[in-house]
């Protein structure tokens, strides 16, 4: 089961280990999501949400690195194309 969507933590509501919840924003809407699996994520961080529960915190540095690598690849290709 694989539909998981990245959202930004707007604010923590409860830090309880079982009932931990935060408000998470997805494009134009927000929903309360359960945070028991990502207790260390902070407001402003992005988490991947599946079936109402955050399953992982998104690594912003890693994401940036991949996109930068791809941009270089893309530039090289465009040079080839010219």
């Amino acid at each position, binding site marked *: *089961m*694989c539909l998981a969507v990245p959202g930004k933590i707007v604010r923590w509501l409860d830090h309880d280990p079982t009932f931990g919840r935060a408000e998470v924003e997805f494009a134009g809407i927000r929903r309360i999501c359960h945070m028991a*699996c990502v207790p260390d994520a902070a407001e402003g961080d992005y988490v991947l949400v599946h079936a109402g529960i955050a399953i992982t915190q998104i690594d912003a540095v*890693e994401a940036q690195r*991949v996109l930068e690598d*791809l941009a270089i690849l893309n530039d090289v290709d465009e040079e080839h194309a010219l």
Partner: protein
Amino acid sequence: MKYVDEYRDPRLARSLLHEIRQTATQCWVLMEVCGGQTHGLLKSGIIQELEGVVELIHGPGCPVCVTPAEAIDFAQELALRPGVLLTTFGDMLRVPGSRESLLTVRARGGNVRLVYSPLDAVELARQNPSQQVVFFAVGFETTAPATALSVLQAAQLGLDNFSLLVAHVRVQPAMEAILQSAECRVQGFLAAGHVCTISGVTSYEELSARYGVPIVVTGFEPVDLLLGIQDCVAQLESGTASVSNQYQRNVRDAGNRHAMHIMSDVYATADRPWRGLGTIPSGGLVLRPEWRQFDAEYRFQRPTPTLLIECADCRSGDVLAGRIKPPACESFGTRCTPESPLGAPMVSSEGACAAYYRHAPKSGPHAVSITNTGR
């Protein structure tokens, strides 16, 4: 949408396609494990773009499709019992059991409600103390932490009207079963990225080493899928076979320890029949004995399931095992369509047959059935 739109960038996708074509000297056979990946590959057109370069075999990664018909039948039976509210994901509603789907059961008075999250079902139980709320828990390791958490929450709230009908399955044993099969053609795996957010990467190392296949943790957007394919092809071309992670923004090597802790608190692994594939050793999860009071099978005395024989005209078992592509089934698109499915993979939009039916070119008119929404 951040972390989505960047990975749908057509320019990046094009240059990756170019790279893959440059790298491959022969047509490699890869299996994408997850149905969400099948959907993404077909929807974006990657499959056609890479024809002759990479052949993609669609794996068993549609948990809805592999849920045994007996489990669906029992869920239906519960939905018809007075005082029971059966909740589940929208995906499960159209899947046929041995006779009908939950949607038809609801039409004849069954109490079925779709929820977005199992934790919403806990909330329903809290608000409706006079009803027995059952959550029909299907899904891979991605979903199991959410359902496990629902048990922990229900226990802390002291709810005696919440239970799970557990049909969770585990991906890795299924991959192993595929590799063990004599007619296996798979040369490399695109592992299911969201499953790996929970279970991690390292657990695949033994499998990769034992069978000599590259296993690449892969995401779902076009750029993610192409990164996974590129890595897999590069490994095959260089004669290596290791585990690598092309979904590092979301997947840590060790997985999510909080999630795994919650899961192992609540669930134990067990042998489990997969629809169309037969029983897979350690292929599923069951509630641990200490949580028995939250087990719908125990609470409602499920009769010992009898294994049902699937319809002879439906080759979903072969499709799920990657032995054939959906159009190779004689019933595909004729006797078996999303409107009247013979097998589960034609039902779920993640199922390989439905994905092919939706996205593959076709000719001729097909039946329409529109139920009322929003008027």
